[in-house]
């Protein structure tokens, strides 16, 4: 399993191993017992797998939204691009091939921030990204008004989605309580070579 930060496995009574993927993170695994889980409001998660290589993973990203991204234009997409790239590269390193990847997209519930629907922006970005990169989308559940709990078994490709009682706005406020997390910092202070 690869994850950018240490994750504690939690075992349920049936012995399954669970990893919670929070905003700005991703995880990949070849272990058929591992379940990747997350809670989504306006955020989007891509659940990707290569059935032949027996590897899969999940990310969880949030674009900065209209108010946080004032004047950034297309550059505001970099958070989503980076999240997708980190997940893809980790999958490739474990033997996945782009042409075999199957992706299910979840989340992007409708939350209005300023004049724009952040969930819609996240959903559109994810769909456009897959189309541009020629990666096959095989299902999922985007948009709507409800927050979701997602459970993904990457090796089998099985996904379970549960609608949460909390409206998407409440989960969105929790998502926004922290700044948008990019998977890597812009400046890496430990590496001064130039």
């Amino acid at each position, binding site marked *: 399993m690869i994850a*950018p930060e240490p994750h504690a496995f939690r075992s349920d009574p049936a012995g399954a191993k669970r990893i919670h993927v929070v905003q700005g993170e991703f995880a990949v695994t070849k272990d058929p017992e591992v379940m990747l889980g997350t809670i989504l409001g306006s955020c989007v998660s891509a659940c990707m797998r290569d059935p032949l290589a027996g590897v899969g993973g999940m990310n969880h990203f949030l674009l900065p939204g209209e108010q946080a991204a004032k004047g950034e*234009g*297309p*550059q505001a*997409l*970099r*958070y989503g*691009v*980076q999240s*997708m*790239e*980190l997940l*893809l*590269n980790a999958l*490739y390193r474990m033997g996945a091939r*782009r042409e075999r990847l199957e992706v299910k997209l979840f989340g992007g519930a409708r939350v209005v921030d300023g004049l724009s629907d952040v969930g819609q922006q996240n959903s559109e970005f994810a769909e*456009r*990204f897959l189309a*541009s*990169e020629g990666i096959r989308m095989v299902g999922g559940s985007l948009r709507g008004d409800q927050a979701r709990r997602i459970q993904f078994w990457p090796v089998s490709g099985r996904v379970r989605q549960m609608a949460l009682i909390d409206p998407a706005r409440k989960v969105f406020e929790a998502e926004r309580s922290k700044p948008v997390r*990019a*998977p*890597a*910092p*812009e*400046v*890496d202070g*430990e*590496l001064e*070579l*130039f």
Partner: protein
Amino acid sequence: MPAAAQIRVMVVDDQMTMRSLVRTGLQQLGFQDIVEAPDGEEALRQILSRPVHLVISDFNMPRLDGMGLLRALRSHGPTAKTAFIMLTGRADKELVQKAVQLGVNNYLVKPFTVQTLKEKIEAVFGKLT
């Protein structure tokens, strides 16, 4: 001071979305002569047929990766001095150090802003006009 419009740039990344983001950033900085390639092999083929002043390349790519491209350019007389900025993620420190040994001019940690892109290019070429 070099004019951005006079600098020919090759952007190399296997993700079209990332190439498009870098291209947009370069255009905001005044660059006009921008070419793209999806992997090191295609970049090398294009550069050998028409040289560029600057290569901005990802590490992880199919066929020929960023390190392979850098090595190939540095070992070929006419392209040996081509400015090379490597795109990297936080986890690629060892690769950056290896790239430095191979003569990379600078590196850029993703995700980056247009301002950071500008600073990295100016660190190589001097202040842009």
